């Protein structure tokens, strides 16, 4: 391996606090983000399980509910916190900040992120935002009930709008604003690191698609979170200072006229929120696309089909993501001409999405496929991306959306495409990089059982929701027993709840596998998958400064598998042309 000496000095920290708590090492910070997301995902799943149980057995005794029975407001509080925790603390955090932090610097041949202190700050600011968000459960009135989108006027009026809309909603706004700051700091570091810290030979055209996806995601975050931060600032002022940015005049809430506000626009919040909110969908899923491309290529023993097209498609999806926020607001009374424009732009996203799907299939075609757990989750990602994406084409039509808006069809759509597909990307990444991160292999048998339970499970949960939506079932109803036209659909809810219970239980397999393998798993080789990118050229787990002071030089693209004439079916990026000649 040809290397060059790094410019800095590298002393691993010795104390526990500096090593594991306030660490500057990108790898430790990546694991911190991952653990934060892991904790959050189980909290989020627990909340969803409580909701599912309540929907099927509305009179069932529930933990943490005064009187033992869940009220509609408590159901909405669970719903709000489930969405907020999952979107911000899991889907935004694990794929980008978790894996991106750990892997990106190594994949580009850097010893750390560009600004390690900023990196540490990003994590702790994010941690603070999680604490503030979760503390909403424990204040008077409990957690907010306005959903993860926090639409005014419900979110802006305060306590009078319902339980949880007092201190709980204020904490939500502050928590999300803090999260924005953490995400912005993180985005700065990701982009700067990718732009300025690539090793010699790591040209843009040789960057792994994972790095491309983290880079584009960071750009989206940089441009989107500032807007949400501004929106949160205005909402907070409406709540605590009495301004009227989002609150219109003439409101009467439970017979009480709201006279202190005039002229504000709830739609203004929706525009600001969705200008952030739609790119946020891609912030969640783009890293999964990168990981899937990477994993599919590695385990098909073939180069990624259409590398440049994949980069172009990632960029196009990222760009178009900023042009389509209006499709969340088709029923807000917008001009049909605006709706047409937003509809057309939304459907345009289908083009780069189809390119990606086609290229994933092209990568698999004729490959010597190894069905590792990581590969299976990668394939699962493709499946879910297609399934969830297709329902997006329905919702992109304003005339159809008028009917489907706020029904379970939408719940099914965004869970498949934004939630579960992204989670599959996280699982693929976990099974793929766990050996590098912890120096031990995850158990493949448990992994495959976990995959099948999860894959079948998520389809059995979310496919029926499409039919609920088509039948006109509104979302966010805490109890459907009193609604006549929903009565025949109760059995579908029953089916979904049982599926959810099994699927969530199956995640304990993953949890067991994760922690057991960390301690007692089979020792991992440096390159257990015979992969090509730079992280596999160093020990597992990597040393403190990644390359022990000798930064590798890159000679080739990231996916040189099954090169004709070569004796091995992979050529790592750092192997010199001379070495290839000798070895092959």
């Amino acid at each position, binding site marked *: 391996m040809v290397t060059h000496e790094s410019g800095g000095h590298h002393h691993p*920290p010795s104390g526990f606090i*500096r090593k594991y708590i306030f660490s500057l090492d990108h790898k430790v910070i990546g694991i911190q983000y991952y653990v934060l997301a892991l904790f959050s995902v189980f909290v989020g799943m627990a909340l969803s399980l409580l909701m599912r149980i309540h929907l099927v057995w509305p009179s069932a005794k529930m933990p943490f509910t005064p009187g033992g029975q869940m009220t509609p407001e408590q159901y909405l509080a669970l719903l709000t916190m489930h969405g907020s925790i999952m979107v911000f603390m899991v889907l935004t955090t694990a794929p980008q900040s978790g894996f991106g932090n750990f892997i990106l610097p190594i994949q580009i041949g850097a010893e750390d992120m560009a600004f*390690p202190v900023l990196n540490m700050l990003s994590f702790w600011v994010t941690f603070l935002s999680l604490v503030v968000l979760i503390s909403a459960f424990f204040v008077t009135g409990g957690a907010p009930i306005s959903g993860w989108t926090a639409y005014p006027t419900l979110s802006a009026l305060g306590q009078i709008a319902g339980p949880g809309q007092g201190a709980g909603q204020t904490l939500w706004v502050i928590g999300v604003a803090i999260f924005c700051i953490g995400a912005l700091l993180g985005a700065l570091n990701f982009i*700067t690191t990718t732009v300025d810290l690539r090793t010699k030979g790591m040209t843009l055209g040789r960057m792994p698609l994972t790095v491309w996806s983290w880079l584009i995601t960071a750009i989206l975050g940089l441009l989107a979170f500032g807007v949400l931060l501004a929106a949160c600032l205005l909402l907070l002022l409406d709540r605590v200072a009495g301004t*009227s*940015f989002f609150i219109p005049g003439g409101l009467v809430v439970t017979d009480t006229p709201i006279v*202190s506000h005039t002229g*504000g*626009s709830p739609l203004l919040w929706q525009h600001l929120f969705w200008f952030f909110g739609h790119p946020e969908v891609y912030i969640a899923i783009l890293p999964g696309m990168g990981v899937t491309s990477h994993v599919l290529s590695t385990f098909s023993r073939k180069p990624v089909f259409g590398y440049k097209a994949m980069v172009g498609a990632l960029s196009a999806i990222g760009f178009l993501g900023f042009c389509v926020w209006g499709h969340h607001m088709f029923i807000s009374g917008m001009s049909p001409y605006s709706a047409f424009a937003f509809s057309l732009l939304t459907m345009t996203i289908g083009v780069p999405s189809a390119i990606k799907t086609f290229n994933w299939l092209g990568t698999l075609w004729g490959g010597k496929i190894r069905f590792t757990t990581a590969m299976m989750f990668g394939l699962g990602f493709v499946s879910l991306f297609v399934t969830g994406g297709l329902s997006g084409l329905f919702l992109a039509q304003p005339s159809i959306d008028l009917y489907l808006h706020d029904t379970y069809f939408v719940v099914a759509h965004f869970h498949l495409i934004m939630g579960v597909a992204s989670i599959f990307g996280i699982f693929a990444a976990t099974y793929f990089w766990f050996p590098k991160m912890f120096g031990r292999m995850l158990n493949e048998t448990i992994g495959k059982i976990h995959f099948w339970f999860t894959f079948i499970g998520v389809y059995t949960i979310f496919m029926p929701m499409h039919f609920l939506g088509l039948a006109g079932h509104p979302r966010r109803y805490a109890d459907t027993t009193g609604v006549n036209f929903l009565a025949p659909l109760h059995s579908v809810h029953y089916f979904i709840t049982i599926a959810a219970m099994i699927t969530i239980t199956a995640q304990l397999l993953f949890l067991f596998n994760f922690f057991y393998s960390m301690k007692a798993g089979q020792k991992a080789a440096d390159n257990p998958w015979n992969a090509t990118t730079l992280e596999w050229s160093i020990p597992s787990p990597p040393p403190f400064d990644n390359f022990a002071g000798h930064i590798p030089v890159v000679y080739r693209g990231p996916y040189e598998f099954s090169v004709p004439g070569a004796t091995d079916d992979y050529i790592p990026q750092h192997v010199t042309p001379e070495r290839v000649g000798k*070895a092959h």
Partner: protein
Amino acid sequence: MPGTITDEIEIIDAGRGGGNDIPAGGDDDGEGPGGGSPGIPQRAYFTVIQLGLAGIVMFFMALTSSFLVRKGLGNDWVTFNFPRILWLNTLILLASSITIQIARRHLHEDQRAAFRRWWSVTTSLGILFLAGQFIAWRQLAGQGVFLVTNPSSSFFYVLTAAPGLHLFGGILALLYVSHRNWQRARISQGTAADVASIYWHCMDGLWVFLFALLYLGR
């Protein structure tokens, strides 16, 4: 399944950034809370400040579009007497952009005393600007115009406080540049001064834009 391609170490002089000829590492001395972090090229500081400014611009564009939308919504927008001190404030900030350039020139010519003098003048002008903003708020309060009085005043306070906060950050950066012990820094003083001045000029431009928005849209 370990591969058969073996590694051998050959240390050569090489660069960063995907193959250009800038030497690896920066001027990092390896000191840090965690026991050291690797060196980075000085251009990374320029990259990060430009990216940071892009994020800041998005934040203010969101506020600007909110201003325009909210103003166009209804008939509850009330005009108030624009505080005259904001004109002076704007001149002060524009002057500070000139003084920071003079300071930078002296630094690059290694005229340290002149640099410190002009850098201090810039810092003082920044503090003067913040004091002027505070006086403007006092003048508005004197008219009975507060944050919640009217959407126009709400935006006035938000669109003067937010850049004020950002400029406060700029003043901290100026103080950092003038008081840092550069023997132990990862970033050189010249780079730090350049980066701080880029931020300062942009805050200056941003304020001029917001001032025009507030004045014309009041």
